[in-house]
């Protein structure tokens, strides 16, 4: 019997060719990990090409999973385990693997042709170059083909089940339950029994291989994480966003209308909502990004919750419609699932470089609220917050997510819909002006205007992109009126700060000189880096912005309370620029634009170096004082 060792946390990366089924393998392992009560975070990483050339570095697809009995905020820096289905996936990923880490490689694929394709002069499985790792070179293909032989598939089809063999092996190695994957295969391939049976056979063969051979000296277990009690599920950012939009609409009592045009990595939100037609959700796949936004605006005008989803290039196309929504003061929820840009950039890779576009990417003075989700599950809450602000303030709202949040998964304490505050769209039904007239641009205490939905008798009125007279909404070119309206629209958005929570600082030691302030998906890496720095004896404080416009009312005060403020961003310092301009605080940027989440290890090293700089300065100052 193999020994079982307990581990606190493990990072596994499954890597193979795009056609090798690595995303599915990773997903399954994640699901089994979830049911064991581990905390986890995932990072799918795949090429933009649907079928990139086989066996090349460009065609490598990987899925990384970090799971632990402690809490997990990121998919992890360095994998402990690398499953490499071919030479390309070994070459592309070996640089990240921890020294001493475990490699499971499919020996069958390491033939001369495949090695040459990625520039290996010698076979790394046998030339000693992997001596620093625990290498398990196994002929996954041959064993899979043998295992599925009874089902009469050709060799090519048979070998396609090798991802299940690898999954079976890892399932055994990390003492995951096998039954969920078997049930999954039963239902996924219910209509194709030969595929179902061959995948199950491959999975069981992989599991048995681990158990019966003495290849692996130990197997591992990772205990359940200590998390608040309750019912949990696994959720990706795009799924959470879709559910959050639905929840916002339900809380507002409005039907949900999504106008969208397919674009990576936002399309999954369209897919999710297209499955929800029986929940009163209308989805409209428009002819282009402009029409998607336009139709959403039209539906909003007609009394639905109008939503449009996209990524950076689509945002650029929608900006004219968003500007009109600002002018009309019409609710509209715009979700930008950011990807690496500009132009096509790297569509399947993450970035947060659309902040300026969200804040400023319009013509004229066109302020609007901007929100950003901090984790996959937070996409749910941020969507509801976006709906609330859009309806309460009669304004378009931009919600920023990114490719990492969109596709990354984490455990989610299932929220209770009924406990979420209702949102009152407060449509106008009665005249509000003298002599029974309707003043569409009168304002309430929040400076929000009344919304009369077409079909409401007696409130017929016209709105449009031409500047309107304060109150009556009639066309106006009067200089003072325009000045007043520009300022009113700005004041309305600025005033939202009164209804959003203050920026909270996490500073367990209370002794930090350095504050790390983030926004969006850097939340996980920043928190992980804070813990690494604290472990190294350098306490740093952290804070995170979910509201980018307006910023929380106490932001300036928080920034000024620290000797150094560091802003890690997956852009060249966009939030840093905003904070410098707004608060005249000399914040420092920590920029990484590699299409990947910021590495906690790299960030913590930087934080430690900054903390040490302060310590030396303090010591020198002490000497001088003597």
């Amino acid at each position, binding site marked *: 019997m193999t020994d079982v060792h307990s581990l606190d946390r493990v990072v596994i990366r499954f890597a193979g060719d795009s056609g090798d089924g690595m995303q599915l393998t990773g997903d399954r392992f994640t699901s089994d990990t979830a049911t064991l009560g581990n905390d986890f975070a995932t990072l799918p990483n795949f090429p933009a090409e649907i079928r990139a050339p086989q066996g090349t570095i460009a065609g490598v697809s990987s899925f990384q999973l970090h799971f632990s009995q402690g809490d997990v905020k990121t998919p992890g820096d360095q994998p402990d385990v690398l499953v490499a289905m071919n030479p390309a996936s070994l070459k592309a990923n070996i640089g990240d693997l921890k020294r001493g880490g475990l490699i499971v490689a499919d020996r069958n694929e390491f033939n001369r042709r495949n090695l040459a394709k990625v520039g290996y002069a010698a076979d790394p499985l046998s030339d000693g170059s992997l001596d620093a790792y625990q290498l398990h070179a196994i002929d996954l293909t041959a064993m899979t083909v043998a295992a599925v032989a009874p089902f009469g598939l050709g060799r090519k089809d048979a070998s396609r089940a090798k991802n299940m063999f690898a999954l079976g092996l890892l399932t055994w190695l990390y003492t995951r339950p096998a039954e969920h994957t078997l049930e999954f295969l039963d239902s996924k391939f219910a209509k194709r029994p030969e595929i179902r049976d061959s995948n199950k056979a491959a999975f069981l063969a992989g599991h048995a291989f681990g158990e019966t051979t003495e290849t692996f000296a130990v197997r591992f277990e990772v205990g359940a994480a200590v998390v608040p009690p309750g019912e949990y599920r696994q959720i990706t950012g795009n799924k959470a966003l879709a559910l959050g939009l639905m929840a916002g609409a339900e809380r507002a009592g409005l039907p949900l209308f999504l106008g969208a045009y397919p674009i990576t990595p936002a399309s999954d939100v369209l897919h999710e909502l297209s499955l929800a037609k029986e929940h009163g959700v209308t989805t409209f796949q428009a002819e282009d990004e402009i029409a998607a936004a336009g139709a959403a605006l*039209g539906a909003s005008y007609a009394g639905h919750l109008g939503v449009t989803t996209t990524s950076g290039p689509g945002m650029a196309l929608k900006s004219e419609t968003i500007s009109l929504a600002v002018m009309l003061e019409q609710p509209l929820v715009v979700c930008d699932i950011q990807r690496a840009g500009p132009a096509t950039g790297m569509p399947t890779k993450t970035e947060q470089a659309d902040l300026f576009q969200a804040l400023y990417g319009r013509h004229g003075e066109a302020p609007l609220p901007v929100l950003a989700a901090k984790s996959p599950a937070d996409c749910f809450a941020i969507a509801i917050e976006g709906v609330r602000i859009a309806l309460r303030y009669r304004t378009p709202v931009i919600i920023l997510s990114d490719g990492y949040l969109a596709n990354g998964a984490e455990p989610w304490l299932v929220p209770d819909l009924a406990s979420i505050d209702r949102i009152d769209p407060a449509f106008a039904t009665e005249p509000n002006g003298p002599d029974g007239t309707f003043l569409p641009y009168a304002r309430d205490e929040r400076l929000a205007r009344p919304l009369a939905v077409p079909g409401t008798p007696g409130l017929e009125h016209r709105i*449009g992109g031409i500047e309107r007279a304060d109150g009556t909404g009639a066309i106006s070119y009067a200089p003072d009126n325009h000045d007043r309206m520009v300022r009113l629209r700005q004041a309305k958005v600025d005033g939202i700060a009164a209804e959003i929570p203050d920026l909270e600082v996490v500073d367990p030691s209370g002794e930090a000189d350095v504050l790390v302030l983030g926004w969006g998906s850097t939340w996980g890496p920043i928190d992980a880096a804070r813990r690494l720095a604290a472990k190294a004896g350098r306490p740093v404080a952290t804070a995170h912005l979910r509201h980018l416009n307006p910023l929380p009312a106490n932001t300036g005060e928080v920034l000024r309370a620290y000797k150094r403020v560091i802003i890690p961003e997956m852009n060249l310092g966009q939030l840093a620029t905003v904070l410098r301009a707004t608060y005249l605080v000399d914040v420092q940027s920590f920029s990484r634009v590699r299409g990947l989440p910021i590495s906690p290890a790299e960030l913590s090293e930087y934080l430690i170096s900054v903390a040490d700089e302060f310590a030396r300065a303090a010591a020198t100052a002490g000497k001088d004082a003597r």
Partner: protein
Amino acid sequence: MSTGLAKIPLSLTPLNRKEFVSDQEVRWCPGCGDYAVLAAFQSLMPQLGIARENTVIVSGIGCSSRFPYYVDTYGMHSIHGRAPAIATGVAIARPDLAVWVVTGDGDALSIGGNHLIHALRRNVNITIMLFNNRIYGLTKGQFSPTSEAGKVTKSSPAGSLDHPFNPVTLALGAEASFVARTIDSDRKHLTEVLTAAVNHRGASLVEIYQNCPIFNDGAFDGLKEVDSPAVIPLVHGQPITFAKGELGVVRGADGRLRVRATSDVAPSDLVVHDAHAKDATLAFELSQLTDTQTLSASPIGIFRDVDRSVFDDQTRKQVSMPLDRASELQKLITGRDTWTVL
């Protein structure tokens, strides 16, 4: 099928033209053809019998797109070219609204060409009034996508090189289910065509030849003479003749439509107009009789009026709201694969 106004509440009291006149001062140039269309529209509206608050007019940008401001219903003056997209959202969301789109040749055919063709192919239940004055008026006189080639304007001092669009041909190419052409000066015809268009279920495109007295005056004068030989009237079920009956449309031996002196052909050889033909071929052929360069000939009337599946009706059919929306949504939020932490 074809009751474009089905599902729209009727007015409880009879309405009159004045109730459709807003308090805004109309600011088109004196003599603009838009006045005639506005007047015809405001007279037509009470006759439809639907509640005033259930009409929405969405326009783009351009002189004609000021239209919604002058009609006392709901309305939105939106973005250049985008009115069909916005109207699509309104129409999908609300079957109880009569949705009109007001647009021009530049708005619909240049910057908004994509939205126009997609609204037509989807067959969204909207009525599009395309004011074609063959010029950019609001921006003070540049050639438009319907201007004749060689047109000398401020932006084309050596003559424009663009081949003009034929809006009817374009709409038929997109397989629009209702396509018509009328003239601003012929109030009776304009009213008849608009009435047929709004009663058509699906997307209706009405091209309205509209004079711009400032930048393209007289563009349609040839069509406005009494019994003008340039006007080819299209009446469903009638043989196609014009020029006081002296000319007629026949099908030549090569299968193509030809204009012949009626005295030279047997009455049975005259092509009988069939706007309801399922196939758009005849309508397309008739649209090709238009001389888009000098308008020496132009068919006027309803080219095509057929029923086909309506996008917004079909979209709504797929969507349902559960009786217990919150608990159904809670099930979705919870999902099927959960674990409990004690």
